């Protein structure tokens, strides 16, 4: 399994043709207390770089973009009851949705963990 990162602070785990997507620890820290997450329904077609989910913190609603295009197979239903999972376990239990990857070449250009860490270090 490989994990990739985007400059919009999403992470993406790739296993075969399946991708699991969430937001990074840095992103949840910036958002603050998460009170609601709207995940896409099964069967939704998402395109790389387009809005796929919405995360609501106490202060504001923020879009979450799909780091790769594909067909959603599952939204994380645990977030309905416990949206704070995004704060407590952003890069594991607080994942947002899974999809079947449409085009693996879209993974090109995404950052690995080391590159993402270096990117975050350049912010504020």
């Amino acid at each position, binding site marked *: 399994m490989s994990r990739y990162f985007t400059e919009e602070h999403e992470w993406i785990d790739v296993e075969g043709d399946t991708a699991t997507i969430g937001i990074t620890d840095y992103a949840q820290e910036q958002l603050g207390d998460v009170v609601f997450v709207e995940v896409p329904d099964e069967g939704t077609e998402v395109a790389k770089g387009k809005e796929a989910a919405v995360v609501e913190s*106490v202060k504001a609603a923020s879009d979450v973009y799909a780091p790769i295009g594909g067909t959603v197979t599952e939204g994380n239903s645990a977030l309905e009851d416990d949206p704070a999972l995004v704060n407590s376990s952003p890069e594991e239990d607080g994942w947002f949705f899974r999809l079947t990857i449409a085009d693996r070449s879209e993974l090109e250009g995404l950052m690995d963990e080391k590159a993402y860490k270096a990117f975050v270090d350049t912010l504020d």
Partner: protein
Amino acid sequence: MSDENEEQPPIQTLPLDAWHRRHGARMVEFAGYRMPIQYTGEHGGIVAEHDWTRNAASLFDVSHMGQLSISGANAATELEKLLPGAIASLKEGRMRYSLLLDEDGGILDDLIVTNTGPNLAMVVNGACKWDDIAHLREHLPDSITLTHYDDQALLALQGPKAAEVLGSIIPGVADLSFMTGGSFEFDGTPIWVARAGYTGEDGFEISIHESGVSALADALVADERVHPAGLGARDSLRLEAGLPLYGHDLTTDTNPVNAGLGFALSKKRREEGGYLGHAACIARLEDGGCADTRVGLVLEGRQPAREGAKIYSGDKLVGKVTSGGHSPTLGHPVAMGYVDTRHAPDGTQLTIDVRGKRLPTRVVPLPFVPHKYHRKGA
């Protein structure tokens, strides 16, 4: 391409800017200032800061607000020509919530007037202070002196433990009751302390020269009952307290009648008139109100409705949310908005459109969380 002729006012820095950063504040631009939105670390985060305010005491920096005063012969009478509140009868040390109105009764700003003895002091919203100054200067006669205390900082200490804490540093302040204020001293510096705030909690606002504010902030947070809190918590607290925010719940398109601020139209002055917007306000009162009314709304589930979301009764558009979010105290979303007056009675079932989804909502009385002001005799 940028327009080089367009003058952008420079973003200002609060006197406590370095202090906030030292305490882990995340700074954002608000009302032309870099302001702390929330703090990081053990006690930081909007929900933690919000809860701490409801249970202990939080220190807010509200130095972006405008601190003005007017003085001169007939200052109170002249100010009464611009505000619907009774100012001439305001006793020394007393404060009153009032409104700057335009000719149509539209709200230009909401503010607090205090009779400090030598002057009538006003605290106005940070985002409108320059417009307020222009409006006051335009309408007040030249014999009235308008002063903008732009070198005074303003701190708010809010919460059930605020009186004990502040009383231990500044003896005598605990004797103040809600909406009264007086002159005190901190570390040899004269300060003005008012028992007021905008969180629904008991608390104080302290006006102090910018040169002394850092020492006062240090003295307050040295008490373990006090943590700093940012704009984020201030907003969720005032929303739970059902208090309208200028620029959102109040604008020139709203008026004291539909905003539910009829208490700011003092009875005597309603009858006597003589202030800008009086005729328009009276017409609305006599016509039995307005087409729309500010209401409180609770939502089921967890998804908040934000400012701008449309409110429906069945398929009919009946209003708009003016502020909304998650209520940390209640644990569910709440909102304020304006709805068609026929749909304003408590208990009315409505829906709010959030990104194409209709969220069920119900009109409820404000405030969402009861006020805990320290009223005289209470």
